[in-house]
């Protein structure tokens, strides 16, 4: 019979505290002077984890109690099935500690990454629950122990606050105790070897909008910029609840299907090829002008779309390019995650900490949707992707409107396991996250919890002692619920082997924003170290900044062998700004007849 202690009681033969007061003659200092110690017992209740034989179900007999060994823990938690099988799929999550013994506890990759079950949810108060640390350690553990027969795995982490996930490739300080725990868990105590970071640009279009801009570290940070095509595909993200109607949807569909990246006749004599926000705005202006001129303002529909709908969509789309300038390029191509070329055991950090919330939603929605598309087509480069999203309270709240992001998180939660798209979500208040998002997480971790949160109905299954332990849980300890475990288990995990965000910012202070020309130089030099700064500065001197940005983006996207030559080519020749000659109209030779044929 295997069990885990869930509660403890102490009994003595003291009927009421008053009897000891009387025994000490009311003097508290004499309370411990009694020549005989009162009889007292400690009584522990334990929840049965496993019994052998399992049939028939029997009551627990009175018997001797032993502290569990490693093998006992494996048996008790039913880990033997995936720990000692021919194709082991055990992922260490931490150490079960009791009475001076430490036994590794493993999760089953089939139930953590899929396909049997998937997803992980971690809850806990801010700062003390070590949610981010737990996920960082678990990712390291997954990368080390993810079974070869299950293929390749990568992680995409959204950094939504401060420098939390900006230094995953830098080693952090570990104590000897932490190193010993790493050794016990057979997880290397080194930072992630393959880290790629993506951050939008600032409004100037050349400086990175992230806290990882120190000269020694910025080389792994790629700009994340999207153009019109990328945004319009996810235009629903930009529309608030009041905007969601069939008309706006229809018009966006029309733009997507009939206008974007096509040669399009506006019906007023103009021809457009819309590839950028600027092109789109020109089309909108042409439509408004056309309606005004051709019908004298009396017509209010264009291609069956009401002018108010067109104005609303134009407003939303142009709004995003203004609010998320740097992420959304008003006029230029995109720079994106390496869809189709994801590497095994690589972490892709998308830093949206300094992006407008609307832009965060857009980044999140598009990145996850693209992951899903590629995983469905099996052409992402890896077989499974762990997506780490913090602040689920914000992105998938239990109440509030059904946003696009929430619907997408629900979709991942419910169907992601078949694709290998695994959600690792974290939040402060589990009770306030959508039930289906947390409910579909097969593995649930709990750090230090707030007592108010523990008083909510979702925690009724926990004993009072477990709740008290959760409310006082030290840093580095978690309660784990996993499909194979019949009871929640407390484990201790080592500090993650990476530099903490705050420490990283202190050790590698972010670089100040560079002037436009220096920022351009830095980006080009990063692509080709042979480039001399003066060459670039001469090239872009007195050039329009938008042209330079566009050329820079083209270089980033193309990655040519000769960076400077390609940059020069894309930038084009210097054209003097001549005043165009006035063109006089040539009158027709013959007056136009009334005859229509």
């Amino acid at each position, binding site marked *: 019979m295997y069990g885990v202690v869930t509660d403890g009681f102490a009994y003595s*033969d*003291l*009927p009421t505290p008053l*009897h*000891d007061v*009387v*025994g*000490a*003659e009311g003097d508290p200092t*004499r309370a411990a*002077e*009694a*020549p*005989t*110690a*009162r*009889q007292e017992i400690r009584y522990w209740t334990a929840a049965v984890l496993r019994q052998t034989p399992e049939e028939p179900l029997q009551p627990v007999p009175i018997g001797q109690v032993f502290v569990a060994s490693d093998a006992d823990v494996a048996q008790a938690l039913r880990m033997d099935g995936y720990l000692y099988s021919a194709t082991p799929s055990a992922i260490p999550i931490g150490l079960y500690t009791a009475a001076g013994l430490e036994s590794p506890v493993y999760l089953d990759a089939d139930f953590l990454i899929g396909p049997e079950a998937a997803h992980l949810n971690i809850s806990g108060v801010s700062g003390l629950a070590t949610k981010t640390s737990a996920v960082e350690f678990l990712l390291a553990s997954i990368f080390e122990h993810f079974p070869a027969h299950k293929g390749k795995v990568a992680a995409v982490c959204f950094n939504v606050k401060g420098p939390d996930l900006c230094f995953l490739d830098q080693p952090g300080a570990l104590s000897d105790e932490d190193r010993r725990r790493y050794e016990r868990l057979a997880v290397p105590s080194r930072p992630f070897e393959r880290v790629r970071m993506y951050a939008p640009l600032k409004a100037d279009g050349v400086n990175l909008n992230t806290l990882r801009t120190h000269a020694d570290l910025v080389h792994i940070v790629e700009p994340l910029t999207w153009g019109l095509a990328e945004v319009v595909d996810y235009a629903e993200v930009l529309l608030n609840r009041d905007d969601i109607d069939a008309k706006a949807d229809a018009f966006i569909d029309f733009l997507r299907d009939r206008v974007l990246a096509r040669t399009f006749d506006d019906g007023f004599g103009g021809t457009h090829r819309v590839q950028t926000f600027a092109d789109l705005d020109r089309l909108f202006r042409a439509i408004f002008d056309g309606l005004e001129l051709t019908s004298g303002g009396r017509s209010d529909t264009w291609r069956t779309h009401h002018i108010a709908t067109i104005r609303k969509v134009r407003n939303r789309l142009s709004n995003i390019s203004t609010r998320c300038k740097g992420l959304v390029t008003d006029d230029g191509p995109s720079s994106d995650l390496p869809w189709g070329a994801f590497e095994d055991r690589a972490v892709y950090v998308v830093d949206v900490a300094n992006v407008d919330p609307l832009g965060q939603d857009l980044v999140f929605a598009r990145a996850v949707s693209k992951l899903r598309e590629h995983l469905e087509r099996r052409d992402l480069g890896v077989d499974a992707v762990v997506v780490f999203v913090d602040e689920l309270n914000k992105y998938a709240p239990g109440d509030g409107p059904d946003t696009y992001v929430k619907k997408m998180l629900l979709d991942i939660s419910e169907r992601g396991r078949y694709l290998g798209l695994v959600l690792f979500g974290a939040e402060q208040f589990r009770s306030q996250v959508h039930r289906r998002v947390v409910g579909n997480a097969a593995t649930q971790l709990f750090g230090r919890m707030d007592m108010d949160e523990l008083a909510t109905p979702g925690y009724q299954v926990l004993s009072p002692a477990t709740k008290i332990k959760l409310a006082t849980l030290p840093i580095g300890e978690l309660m784990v619920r996993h499909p194979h475990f019949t009871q929640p288990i407390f484990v201790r995990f080592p500090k993650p082997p990476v530099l903490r965000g705050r420490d990283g910012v202190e050790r590698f202070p972010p670089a100040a924003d560079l002037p436009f020309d220096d920022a351009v130089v830095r980006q080009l030099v990063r692509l080709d170290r042979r480039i001399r700064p003066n060459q670039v500065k001469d090239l872009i001197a007195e050039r329009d900044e938008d042209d330079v940005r566009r050329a820079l983006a083209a270089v980033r996207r193309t990655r040519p062998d000769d960076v400077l030559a390609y940059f020069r080519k894309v930038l084009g020749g210097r054209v003097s700004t001549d005043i165009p000659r006035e063109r006089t109209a040539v009158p027709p030779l013959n007056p136009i007849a009334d005859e229509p044929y």
Partner: protein
Amino acid sequence: MTWWDALAAAGAVPAAFAPPASRGWTDLDDGALPGAELIEEPDLAAHPVTSPALVRAACFLDGIQQWKVVSYDGVAPVIRAYVATAARRRGPNRRPRTLLESSREFAIAPLASMKPAVRRVLETTCPDVVDLPLDRDGGLQPGKVLELARRVVDGARQNLEREIAERSLAVLGPEEWLLVDGLLSVSGKLAAHPRALGVIKSHGAQFFDGANLERALTVPAGHRTSVFRARGGHARNEVYSWYLRLWPWEGQDLLYGLLRIEARADAATVAAASAISGWLCAERAPLATPDARWDRLLYPLQDVETYLKARAPRDLLSAPGSRLPRTGS
């Protein structure tokens, strides 16, 4: 099959009757007239106990007895009895651990009054049977049998206590004391040991009268009386004795918190009486609750009793309510 089940099978009527005296024993006067000879001073006086007290290393000895009627052969009751005694040593961690213990479970029956077949079954199935020889003229009176059975059980318990007490003396440490719940004078070895004390809670036997009786029974809390030599009554071996009040009796009754202590009849006992009394006063804590006699019962002695009760046969004393008529189902 137990021997009482075998009796039932042989034709005896099963019973479950626990007489009121069956759950313990009383310290009532056995009829002999006690007397006292003052040793410490001519008149009985009250002396304050020494404070702060020196708590001494000690073993504590107590016994229990339980019995009940398990069947009737005609009107002859057959009794199942259990007596047990233990000595528990208080260790440096202030927790008592058992030093010595002994128990006896036996049957008591007026064998001569039983049917031969039932008697044969009793004698063959029960390894320890005590016969109750009845007065031929008085005939078989169940009430009288029960009183005789009580005395047999008392005697068995006292024998066991004496045996364990004397064995305990042999293993006492050089500075260790033995505190016995009850009379010291029942054993010559106990009565003569320099570090043995009897603690008597019941005061059926009164050693004084007149003014001395009043002084003895109204001795204030934290005081002892003069030491006297106890004579007669239970005292088969000479011991010195004194009264000690643990708790104020005012507002309660005369015997509230009143102990009588027995110790070796020696001049050293007189010299040490106040210090020993101070020690016993210190033993008031922790209170021996929830026992109703907590005002006189020292906690380590209660601990021995609790220990023995915990090890007694669970099925001997019926639970309250079990005498309700049995339903048909």
